[in-house]
């Protein structure tokens, strides 16, 4: 896939037209480079029913309005189910079918009508009637309690119709648009139509948020953490620059042209470089892509990169009641290894726990799951799962032609690295390493590297643990900034240990895909960078323009910076 895209939407390039936006220029964090211009379409927030809604003047007419809203919901949900089915999302289709039948429920309609006749406004009546059912489901617990969310989805839809506000969920304006939201949920991104969404702006989130990761994997220009984004009215033309984070309502033609020209110049620079990553003086840096097992590997395999630096295997385990069989896993790995025959694939063993719970493996009642039994630690309770996974990887690797390395997530101690390496080699896999996400592992990287063959820095988790700042907490995004000099010092410590032993030290966090930061990481001694496929061309160009000596000088200057903003400024100036 193209690394960037520049989108032209003629219909929206008339700045200052009728209803010109009162919102001034906004700024956030650019997370996927590219310039997009298009009309805003906001994701609907669930409507709150106002407390002071007046009683209906004409209850009979209000009953009809409620019935019409329920009918409209049933029809729309039917259509959505059909659309989901066409996209092969059978599970989503069944939920939508059930929601449609709930909207058409005669008892619901009767109860709501009775409440309206008593003088309740329609939106209140529907809420009260659905809440009665909801309580019954919640009381049943387990699976049924989870289905209460289906009722909530229906209630939000019908209430929005009755209040005359936008429907919650992804907007469908019927034309290409810039999607604006507080934040995107995994469910939103799963159904996002890449042919319609030219840019993404979210009010919350940082460079490592779910939205950022998805935007990069789709190659859609995106800005996150953009305060005030939800104040942009729908249909306002807006420019999104996913490099510097600018979000400009009603941009003038010169501004659009200037940014597009810059964008094209960068694209041309990126296009001028091909093949293995290297600095201007020929120092080799492996450029690799991140991939999820369970995703089709063919797109990633088409990227001009030296292989996969992080194969996430969690997808094989998510959304199912028990672990996948060895056969299932083997088939999934075979397909990936075949796509990367002749290249390297670094498989990360199951990283469950924290924000990725699994019913058959992790304890839902852990008080502090990010600091709990997650990653490699889950093997304390279920050693058989890791054994089965390694068997499947080893079987699939055999004769595949791919150079398969295996690494464990959330290793803290040299002893853990040694035990893991022994287990990997016991399965006939020759190369074993560990992730470095725990500050203790970075500080003791020398002994960890004595116990295994390589390490790979997960900068997102390393930042979370170094700064005691929850990755999912939007308020703390500044603490999780990859430019924090202390975080980079942990990278330097790890890379120095690797250089002393001539063992590879990679970075596979989101930091690796930042073309501004990549030369710094190389200067610190990192030997490979694994990133979203869309980031590879820019990173390759950024490295090709500097010598290793220049990278080292830059790294020294950045390490000495007093804070993250100053560190970034040094890189921008250099």
């Amino acid at each position: 896939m193209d690394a960037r895209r520049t989108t032209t939407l003629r219909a929206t390039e008339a700045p200052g037209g009728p209803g010109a936006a009162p919102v001034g220029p906004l700024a956030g964090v650019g997370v996927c480079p590219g310039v997009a211009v298009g009309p805003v379409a906001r994701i609907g927030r669930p409507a709150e029913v106002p407390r002071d809604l007046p009683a209906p003047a004409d209850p009979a007419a209000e009953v009809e309005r409620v019935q019409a809203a329920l009918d409209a919901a049933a029809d729309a949900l039917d259509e959505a189910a059909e659309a989901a089915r066409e996209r092969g999302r059978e599970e989503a289709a069944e939920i939508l079918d059930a929601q449609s039948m709930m909207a058409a429920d005669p008892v619901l309609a009767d109860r709501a009508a009775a409440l309206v006749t008593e003088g309740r406004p329609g939106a209140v009546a529907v809420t009260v009637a659905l809440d009665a059912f909801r309580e019954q489901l919640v009381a049943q617990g387990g699976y049924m309690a989870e289905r209460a969310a289906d009722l909530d989805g229906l209630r939000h839809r019908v209430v929005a119709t009755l209040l005359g506000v936008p429907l919650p969920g992804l907007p469908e304006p019927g034309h290409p648009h810039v999607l604006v939201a507080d934040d995107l949920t995994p469910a939103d991104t799963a159904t996002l139509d890449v042919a319609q969404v030219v840019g993404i702006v979210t009010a919350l989130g940082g460079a490592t948020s779910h939205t950022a990761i998805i935007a990069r994997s789709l190659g859609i220009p995106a800005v996150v953490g953009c305060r005030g984004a939800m104040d942009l009215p729908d249909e306002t033309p807006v420019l999104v620059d996913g490099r510097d984070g600018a979000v400009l309502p009603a941009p003038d033609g010169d501004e659009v042209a200037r940014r597009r020209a810059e964008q094209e110049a960068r694209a041309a620079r990126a296009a001028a470089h091909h093949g293995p990553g290297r600095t201007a003086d020929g120092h080799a840096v492996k450029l690799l892509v991140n991939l999820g097992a369970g995703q089709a590997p063919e797109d990633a395999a088409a990227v001009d990169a030296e292989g996969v630096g992080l194969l996430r295997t969690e997808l094989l385990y998510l959304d199912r009641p028990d672990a996948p069989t060895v056969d299932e896993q083997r088939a999934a790995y075979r397909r990936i290894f075949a796509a990367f025959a002749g290249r390297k694939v670094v498989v990360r063993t199951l990283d469950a726990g924290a924000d990725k719970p699994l019913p058959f493996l992790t304890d839902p009642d852990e008080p502090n799951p990010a600091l709990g039994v997650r990653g490699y630690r889950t093997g304390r309770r279920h050693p058989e799962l890791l054994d089965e996974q390694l068997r499947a990887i080893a079987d699939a690797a055999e004769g595949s032609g791919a150079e398969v390395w295996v690494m464990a997530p959330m290793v803290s101690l040299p002893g853990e690295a040694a035990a893991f390496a022994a287990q990997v080699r016991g399965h006939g896999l020759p190369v074993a390493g560990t992730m470095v996400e725990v500050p203790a592992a970075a500080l003791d990287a020398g002994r960890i590297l004595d116990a295994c063959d390589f390490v790979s820095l997960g900068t997102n988790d390393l930042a979370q643990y170094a700064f005691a700042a929850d990755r999912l907490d939007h308020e703390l995004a500044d603490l999780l900034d990859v430019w924090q000099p202390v975080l980079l010092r942990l990278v330097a410590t790890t890379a120095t240990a690797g250089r002393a032993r001539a063992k590879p030290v990679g970075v596979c966090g989101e930091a690796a895909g930042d073309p501004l930061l990549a030369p710094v990481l190389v200067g610190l001694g990192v030997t490979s960078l694994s990133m979203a496929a869309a980031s590879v061309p820019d990173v390759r160009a950024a490295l090709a323009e500097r010598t290793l000596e220049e990278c080292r000088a830059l790294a020294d200057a950045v390490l000495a910076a007093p804070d993250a903003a100053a560190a970034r400024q040094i890189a921008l100036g250099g």
Partner: protein
Amino acid sequence: MTTTTQTATAVVGSSVGLHARPASLLVKAATKAGRRGVDVTISVAGSEAVDARSLLSVIALGARHGDEVTLSAAGDDAPATLEELVAIVEREED
């Protein structure tokens, strides 16, 4: 014309209880029966009978695998309708 109410019992066959697909199938069949003039209700032990055309009411019963439910139908076509609905409730698939 007099209508008599007939009842039948059925044991929930779906391993996940009377919701999702089995509940949808039951509600669809009861809705069709309603259009033919046959009104169907369903209850579990200790609950009031609810309209079988109402998906929300049916899943709110919380009938689990192995629970016995009572179906009642009033109308000319009641026996055949009950037979059809019992078969849906007792089906083992989920």
